[in-house]
């Protein structure tokens, strides 16, 4: 998926593949500009006007989303089967409507049920996220940041989706509130057997909440697999450095890793491996040829690096 700009095409998402199985919680990790949000918005066909999907396939429950007519997608898929919790979603709440009515809104839009039924369901959702159905008539300004974010989660769950995409759901929340909100999300995920795609730059949070993780860099997937595997034995040099850049309160105090330079301009990405200008192990081939995505040691651990698999 590329963005068309006046200066050319920004190759935001290039040949990205990953699977989300039912009940999975997949983390899409990377730094700003790596393409994670663009990849997720592509799934929901919520790209800005200058974003265009040039190829590839998005297969959801056996159906090819990219070939689906927009009407069908809007009615049956978006918000009904796949929903989103956006970044800074708490700022997206309508200030003049009660939170309950905002949760009921998508229910009424997608299903033909009575207002009373919708209200009951919204109240139950508020109970589910720990805010309590009694707060249905409260307005957003009466709620704290954590409660607003949890209301957004209720909204995302309103039509009983099978997949929820959460884009940086806990930025701007304090640590303790973040822990509360993530706990709620994990419980809900188990209770409702939801699949979750969690987008974040925070590798610590992803380690805590996701059983699989995809590390993205400059529009491509560098590494992908089970979290336990990736964090214990990262194969891609970028993954290794990135994990090392996050301080931990557990274990011995250690030096933090850093990566010199900065992410490439996606108008003209570097030839060969997009990470080579910043990679300590860069070899000649890295500058010339893009590494293929291969499966390392045959266990669903995917990596794109010339160092691996030779």
């Amino acid at each position, binding site marked *: 998926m590329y963005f068309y700009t006046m200066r050319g095409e920004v190759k935001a998402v290039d040949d990205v593949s990953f699977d989300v199985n039912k009940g999975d919680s997949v983390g899409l990790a990377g*730094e*700003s500009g790596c393409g994670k949000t663009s990849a997720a918005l592509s799934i929901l066909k919520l790209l800005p006007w200058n974003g265009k999907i040039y190829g590839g396939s998005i297969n959801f429950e056996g159906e090819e989303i990219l070939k689906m007519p927009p009407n069908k997608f809007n009615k049956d898929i978006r918000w009904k089967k796949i929903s989103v919790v956006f970044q800074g979603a708490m700022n997206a709440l309508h200030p003049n409507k009660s939170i309950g009515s905002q949760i009921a809104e998508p229910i009424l839009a997608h299903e033909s049920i009575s207002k009373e039924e919708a209200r009951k369901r919204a109240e139950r959702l508020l109970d589910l996220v720990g805010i309590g159905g009694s707060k249905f008539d409260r307005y957003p300004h009466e709620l*704290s940041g*954590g*409660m607003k974010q949890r209301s957004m989660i209720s909204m995302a769950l309103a039509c009983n989706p099978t997949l929820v995409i959460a884009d940086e759901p806990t930025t701007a929340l*304090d*640590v*303790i*509130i*973040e*822990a*509360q909100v*993530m706990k709620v999300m994990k419980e809900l995920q188990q209770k409702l057997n939801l699949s979750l795609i969690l987008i974040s*730059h*925070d*590798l*610590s*949070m992803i*380690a*805590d*909440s*996701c*059983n699989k993780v995809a590390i993205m860099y400059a529009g491509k997937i560098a590494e992908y697999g089970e*979290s*336990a595997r990736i*964090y*214990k034995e990262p194969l891609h040099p970028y993954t290794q*450095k*990135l*994990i090392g*850049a*996050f*301080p*931990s*309160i*557990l274990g011995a*105090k250690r030096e*933090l*890793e*850093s*990566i*010199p330079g*900065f992410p490439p301009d996606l108008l003209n990405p570097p030839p060969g491996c997009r990470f080579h200008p910043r990679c300590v192990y860069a070899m000649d081939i890295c500058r010339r040829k893009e590494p293929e995505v291969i499966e390392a040691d045959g266990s669903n651990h995917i990596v794109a690096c010339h160092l691996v698999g030779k």
Partner: protein
Amino acid sequence: MVARNLKKYYTLKMGFVKTLMAKAVPFVHAVEDLNLIIGKDEVFGLVGESGCGKTTTGRLLLRLVEPTEGKIVFNGTDITAMSSDELRKMRRKMQIIFQDPYESLNPRMSIFDIVSEPVRIQKVASTEAEVHQRVTEVLKDLELVPPEEYIYRFPHELSGGQRQRIAIARAFILKPEFMVADEPLSMLDASIRSEVARLLLSIVKKFHCSFLYITHDIALARYMCDRIAVMYLGQIVEQGVTEDIIQKPQHPYTEALLAAVPVPDPTARRTEVVIKGEVPSAVNPPAGCRFHTRCPYAWERCKKEEPKLLPTEDNRIVACHKYVYGHGK
């Protein structure tokens, strides 16, 4: 840098009629009776969640915000009641770095102008050549080399990490003795963060600065700070050597904070500390211990009596009845 019994109350603005009708004007108890000593060459962390008063404390120490009560003593001089002229001279030695590298640099000024501004305002250089030299020197300290490549650029041409280095350069060009940094790394990408952290620590060491590092990220504070103080609702609840506090927190709030922080290891076993609810209002802080409404160990005494900050055997101070009286007496 020493702060004694610092208090900062902000009055709440209310409508005209309410002001007439209210018996007392409500205050936001932003900082309550705070005592701090930061030594030379020391990196001291102020850790807490939003609204705990850490940013206000940082600004109080520099008198960017006037204290309601209390004393601030810097290098043996009481600066609490200093005139603005004298304070300006003091400010050569006291500086601040802000969180947002996109907001703290004037977009219309060149890098050279931004970094040299403090030198000009404080009139500490006699010739243009000297100004130029000071700018290039501090840019080299922050590894923005060659300096000539940066001085004529504008902020929008630089990345977040580079901009923050410029903000640091501007803060250190006067070789200050006391520095406050308010979340200087939180808006930077992870891979850049540690690079800037390293440079920050090295320049602090180079100038033997006393450094107050304000953050909500206790994991980062572990990496940056020699000692930390944990704040909650305007008060310090625990203070001591960073590593001691991280390994063995004494205050229930510190415990909760450490239990809530995620770590980059999916297989880590964590104890779950259940803290319910949200931070109460600073306008009407709870009576007794301010944390009692959310504390899993709270008992009768906690609701009535404010715990004092008392020293412990392992060289720290804690304000908690549980520490003094044990559990549930």
